[in-house]
């Protein structure tokens, strides 16, 4: 779809940090338990490092690049997925309510999520810039913005 937008690039930073922390946590116990320099020690280290590198240098940037969204007069469009590509199109007239979701990362990175709910279906767009999230909520539900901000 034309005229689509990407989510905030700060999502890459958040996920890279999360991947590094997860890899560190996973490595701690084997590094302590196994004999340093042994075959098993190297195997675990290289495996975890390999998976982390795959995620850090390929999957996370590809995931960010795959995410596109757009809000038009008739529909809300959201696409994502590296290996499993999903495209969602929701009719605006079926939107019952919209939620602006702030999380602990919001004050640090200025990101938020928008949840669009209809009768029988919903859609969540994550890692939006806060201003962008407000604009989407204002566009879909102007009378609710005062309470949500």
């Amino acid at each position, binding site marked *: *779809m034309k005229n689509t937008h990407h989510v905030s690039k700060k999502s890459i930073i958040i996920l890279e940090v999360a991947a590094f922390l997860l890899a560190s946590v996973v490595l701690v116990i084997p590094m302590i338990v196994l004999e340093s320099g042994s075959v098993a020690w190297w195997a675990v280290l290289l495996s975890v490092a390999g998976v982390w590198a795959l995620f850090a240098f390929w999957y996370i940037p590809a995931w960010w690049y795959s995410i596109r969204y757009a809000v038009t007069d008739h529909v809300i469009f959201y696409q994502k*997925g590296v290996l*499993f590509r999903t495209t*969602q*199109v929701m009719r605006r007239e*079926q939107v019952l309510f919209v939620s602006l979701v702030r999380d602990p990362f919001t004050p640090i990175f200025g990101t938020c999520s928008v949840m669009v709910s209809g009768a*029988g279906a919903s859609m969540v767009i994550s890692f939006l810039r806060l201003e962008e999230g407000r604009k989407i909520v204002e566009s879909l539900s102007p009378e609710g913005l005062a309470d949500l901000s």
Partner: protein
Amino acid sequence: MEYTHPHPINIVENTFKYCFLLLLPFFRVLFFYTQGFYQWVRGAWFDLLIVLLIILFGYIRWVFNTFKVANRGIYVSKGIFIWQKRFIPYTNVATVIVESPFYWMPIRAVRVTLDTNAGGKHRYDVSLTMRREDALNLMMKSQLPLRGNEGIRKTYRPKNFYIGVLSLLTSNSLSGVLFASALISQTGDILGREFENQLVSQLTQIVHTLAFGLPPAAAIVGYTLLGGWLVGFLLGLIHHKNFTASRQGNSLYISEGSLIRRYYSLDVKKIHFVQLRQSLTTKFLGLFMVFVHVSGYGKQKNSLAVLMPAATRREAERNLQLLLPEMPFDRTEVHPHKDGIWGFLFKPLVLIFVFLAAAIFLYWFLPSFRGTVVFMAIMAEIPCIWFLILKITAFSHTGIGYTDAVYTLRYSYAYRLYTVSVPANRVVKVQFKQNPWQHFSSSNHRCTVVVYTYAEGRQRHVLPNMDRAEVEAFFSMHGLGIQPAE
């Protein structure tokens, strides 16, 4: 009109399931106790006190439960410590259900439920036990805005044979087994464990006699399932007998049942979609089962949202034109991609292969059980081969059409083929999914289309292996504003 209490039988309803646990032991003891009534009271006074407290609590709940059938809607007030008052306008009501069991006819009581598009998927918005006069008043007032000035009432009444077909194909072995086991267990509670053990022992002996060379364990399982299915079939027959559907204005009125009469009043404007269902058997017989999806209808336990129990294609088309002409069925305009046949066949072929491989493995490694292994392998392969035949049929069946602002979706799920007619304004979201094989293939042709329709809970229709460019262009052309894939 003032607020009214539910029918007094509601007091018994509020307490019955608790009293039942206590009353059975005392009636049994009372019948078998030989030392006299006074002695019996001395022994059972505490249980009697609990029963009286339960009945008192049920009475208090009844006192604090009231309703008023007004001209524009119904007011319901309930709660003892947390008081809740609710008003539901008739214009928001999707379904009104009136249930009249035969055992309540002498006391003129009926059970009434109302449901709207809001609220939970598994609960009704209002559920009351009323006097028959109040229920008739409610039914009349709720149907009045729907009927308008439309004087003509069009009625469809299926043959009993078609009701039998519906019960035959939708009866559930599990529900039948559960019903029969509950019956045997409760009989044991009333007549004693010894009677229950004798009954179960007799049934086991009968099964042994009728095993006809089958392994006894297999025969017991087989006859239990068959017996359960038969009980389920009879229950279905009783549930759907005397089925009638009528249309007047925007009101669709359905009645069914013999021992328990049920009357349903549906708002046509709130119908989400109409669904034709076929299994392979009914496809070969040329029969369709027609269901209608609206909030509240078909929510009850063991209940189906039936519009037509079964019909030939011509009968279904003619009667749908009579009852719901605003939801036509169109021919398929977008078919699955030709390469998609393997996507349909993958699962059944894998299942066939897995069971075959397991059977071969067990045949060689468990020589003393070869007979059982062969038998179980055949039993496992039959449904898999049936599944394969169904998926081959599903490949030619699957597709999407559009006419008069109504989508026609054709797809398969489990062992059934579905044809769904859903108004375009009831489509909430469309999702296109590609697995890595589809996404990274050189032509990037195929995807799975999931259509979400308006419902209380989530309602999805899944069409696999569609041509991505074609289906995106199709939805763009019909109002979903998607540009063709770049």
